[in-house]
């Protein structure tokens, strides 16, 4: 048997001891050492609970590779969540804009309705922002999400003629305009247009939507918001 002179030599036997497999002189020697060594007793106290857990494991299981989820599972979950989010947003829109869809009379009553929800917060950086806007029978609903490249805009427009070309931009400080793209509104289509602009969300002051000949400006900001609607002449 190897001569054990120092703590480290004894300590290296603690594993076998904790498993209850140390025998004879080594066991007697280690126990004598433990009596006089608080450090090794502490070390043993760390190993014993681990040793007690070992019987719960089945070596056949851990010696084979861990099962992996199928590669398409992530995409399936993302699709499920995206579907649920769309449904949720559609329900919210129906609550908000149900009245406007009825026609011109209701629309005329409402000069402008603007609602801004700050949805973000918590510890994950800049919050996503939500802008809903309705004027002259047209309702616009946009979710703005910050990205490293700028801002992603998911937009839904209701109340313009089917086929209307919509041009979206974000307005920065000082009125500078950052294009976000174009889309066409189609009747019966409840899907959102996904657009992106290079302007950081933190610098975005307003969302500007030109729908046909009309331009809608929905300002963002924590200050009481006012909606400005600029109406150019409608084509006849």
């Amino acid at each position, binding site marked *: 048997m190897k001569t054990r002179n120092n703590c480290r030599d004894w300590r*290296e036997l603690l594993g*076998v001891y904790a498993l209850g497999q140390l025998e004879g002189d080594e066991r007697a020697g280690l126990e004598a050492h433990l009596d006089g060594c608080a450090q090794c007793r502490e070390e043993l106290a760390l190993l014993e609970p681990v040793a007690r857990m070992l019987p719960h494991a089945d070596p056949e299981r851990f010696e084979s590779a861990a099962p992996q989820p199928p590669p398409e599972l992530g995409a399936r979950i993302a699709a499920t969540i995206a579907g*649920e989010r769309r449904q949720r947003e559609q329900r919210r829109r129906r609550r908000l804009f149900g009245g406007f869809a009825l026609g011109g009379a209701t629309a005329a009553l409402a000069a402008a*309705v603007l*609602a801004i929800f700050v949805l973000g917060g918590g510890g*994950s950086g800049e919050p996503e922002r939500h802008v809903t806007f309705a004027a002259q029978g047209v309702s616009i609903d946009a979710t703005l999400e910050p990205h490293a490249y700028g801002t992603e805009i998911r937009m839904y427009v209701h109340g313009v003629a089917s086929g209307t070309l919509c041009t979206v931009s974000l307005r920065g400080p000082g009125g500078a305009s950052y294009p976000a793209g174009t889309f066409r509104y189609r009747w019966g289509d409840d899907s959102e247009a996904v657009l992106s602009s290079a302007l950081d969300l933190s610098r975005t002051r307003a969302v500007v939507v030109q729908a046909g000949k009309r331009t809608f400006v929905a300002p963002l900001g924590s200050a009481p918001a006012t909606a400005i609607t600029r109406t150019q002449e409608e084509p006849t």
Partner: protein
Amino acid sequence: MIQIGTSTRGALSRERDVREAYAAHSGELYGFAVRSLGDAGLAEEAVQETFVRAWRAGERYDPKIGSLRTWLFAILRNVVIDLGRARAVRPGVAEGGIEPSVEPLEEALLSWQVEEAMRRIGDDHRRVIVETYYKGRPYAEVAEELGVPEGTIKSRVYYGLRALRVVLEEMGYED
């Protein structure tokens, strides 16, 4: 008419956060789901349901209270319990040749943790623990087979248990 509403949301309310959480934790969650449900199809269902529930409740997740991993495992445990109940009233599964897992959930979680920890320690450490502890082989025999002194085998058992403890602690184990 102007409405301004404010609410705060936690770290999982955005779809991008869910994608990141999936990339970081889906392997472990799936491993535990397979271990506790004993069926790959049900395990997929459980992991999907876990992330959907996490997203729905995203605003309730508070990183100050616990890690995202711990929170996801807590959700998965509930999902596994729900699926186990659903399966109990769905006799077709058992008749189809798959034995329903009767292992209590806590036992399954403990087993999965130790097995997962064993996978993560070094090959040399795992090998000596398997040969001496699980297979009950004499230390001298294992030493000869591996071509190292018996003392080395014994010290590897020590460092192996040390490593296991570190991995278990990383996985949330506390005394």
